């Protein structure tokens, strides 16, 4: 089917059936001659829609696929292309689920408007002004260089008319695409028509989503274009980082985030008061339980069991919170940061490993390379 649509040959369309040019070999020629003998009355009397072969000024066309069955089964026949076209059209009208969901995503609102203000430097001077949601979005758009594309997209996003029109058409059951004309045509024309028809089919299948999307957009129609651009940027990239604080979408769970804060470089001392300079790392908490701080990167530290990514920080007697609130996220991150930066006591050699080499037979993580 893909080959047919990609080619440029003449075809014949009759009663929604595609008739392809007949290919020949000696047996086919014999059959054709027998079929179109002048003595055979049924060859002439049969209605054209029922004919397997149609003769058109000494050219023969053989009955192939039914156009609408092709449309209905396109998803099954060519799943890859269907998904590609679906994504293309959903993106065209900003109907991808992440885009609308991001405006009503409660977790993201907590991170953006309650946790982020705690960790980022909002004011240059020593002012301690609390920022509201609007001001926070203003602050983000100043700090992050949002590409122009998202500002243009934001303008289109606020324009509700195309979606309203699609919904009106769907509700009135008005076919947007005309029926494909009967007669001689080319596969190129068929392909153009087919793409249009697929678009309509996708939009008809997504009617519920369009309704929901319209509702969300009407709610946010008075939001500033810059703010929508910020949200579209987050929906697209799935991550944001300002002043060492940031968040990124979880790979494992949709609608879940990893919220992190960078430690920056810091030093720890061993039993003999020798300093060890530790590199920067990201202490994170997942918005999906358990709410226990961990290090995103491959990292080694006396409080981490091994030298690998995603290790939970060892904290004795720590009881993680059971609920995801802004306060809990802040507490967990601070506990994790404090443990890494100030938790190790060189005299007690607490944690899984000791910074200085001890006379034990079990091989352990070595920190010699960090020694200053």
């Amino acid at each position, binding site marked *: 089917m893909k080959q047919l649509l990609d080619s440029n040959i003449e075809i014949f369309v009759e009663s929604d059936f595609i008739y392809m040019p007949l290919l*020949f*070999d000696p047996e086919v020629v014999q059959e054709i001659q027998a079929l179109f003998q002048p003595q055979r009355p049924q060859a002439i009397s049969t209605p054209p829609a029922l004919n397997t072969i149609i003769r058109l000024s000494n050219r023969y066309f053989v009955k192939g696929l039914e156009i609408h069955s092709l449309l209905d089964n396109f998803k099954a026949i060519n799943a890859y292309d269907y998904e590609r076209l679906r994504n293309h059209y959903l993106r065209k009208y900003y109907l991808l689920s992440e885009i609308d969901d991001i405006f009503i995503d409660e977790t993201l609102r907590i991170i953006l408007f309650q946790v982020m203000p705690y960790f980022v430097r909002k004011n240059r001077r020593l002012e301690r002004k609390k920022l509201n949601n609007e001001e926070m979005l203003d602050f983000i758009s100043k700090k992050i260089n949002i590409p122009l594309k998202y500002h243009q997209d934001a303008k289109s996003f606020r324009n509700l008319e195309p979606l309203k029109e699609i919904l009106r058409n769907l509700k009135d059951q008005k076919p947007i695409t005309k029926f494909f004309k009967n007669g001689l045509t080319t596969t190129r024309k068929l392909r153009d028509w087919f793409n249009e028809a697929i678009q309509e089919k996708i939009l008809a299948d997504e009617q519920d989503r369009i309704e929901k999307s319209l509702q969300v957009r009407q709610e946010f129609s008075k939001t500033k274009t810059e703010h929508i651009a910020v949200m579209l940027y987050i929906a697209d990239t799935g991550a944001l980082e300002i002043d060492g604080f940031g968040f990124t979408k979880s790979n494992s769970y949709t609608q879940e985030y990893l919220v992190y804060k960078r430690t920056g470089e810091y030093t720890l001392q061993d039993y003999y008061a020798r300093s060890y300079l530790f590199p920067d790392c990201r202490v994170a908490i997942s918005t999906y339980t358990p709410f226990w701080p961990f290090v995103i990167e491959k990292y080694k530290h006396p409080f981490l069991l091994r030298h690998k990514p995603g290790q939970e920080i060892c904290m004795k007697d720590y009881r993680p919170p059971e609920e995801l609130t802004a306060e809990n996220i802040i507490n967990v991150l601070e506990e994790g940061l404090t443990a890494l930066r100030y938790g190790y006591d060189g005299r007690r050699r607490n944690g899984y490993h000791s910074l200085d080499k001890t006379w034990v037979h079990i091989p352990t993580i070595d920190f010699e390379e960090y020694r200053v």
Partner: protein
Amino acid sequence: MDLIKDIKRNRLKHRQKEPLKKDIFNQISSIVKRYELNKNFLKVLDGVEDYLSNVNLNANRVRVKASMESPLFSLVTKDEYMLTISIIKKIGNSYLKFAYSPEEILLCGPLFRLNPSLTPENLERYHFETLFLHERVKADNKEHDEISNRSIEDT
């Protein structure tokens, strides 16, 4: 007893797989499709004798026969079908189904005229140009021998 043996032999014969015979239409139509031949090829085919008399073929050159797997069933467009049928009708000899390229199609006629009893093994194995040169040298030598014999007899 004889009847039983006869039945058994017949059944065994029917059970044996028979190789699919080479079909001349499949062979030529695949060459037409592969090399995108058109009506002009028929004109070249008409003038092949003139072409061979003018061109200087190197007798020492050994052409390698191109390998080709023709499909079991070949379906072609109307133009390709007409051209294939015209080629088959125009040449009309048994060597044609061993031609693997347009060049070999051209040499089919002259080669058949030089020696119509070449074995299928040789036709399958050697390029028609090599066979043609070989047959032409053979024919020239024969002619030369006849002339020299005649001159000896005369003297």
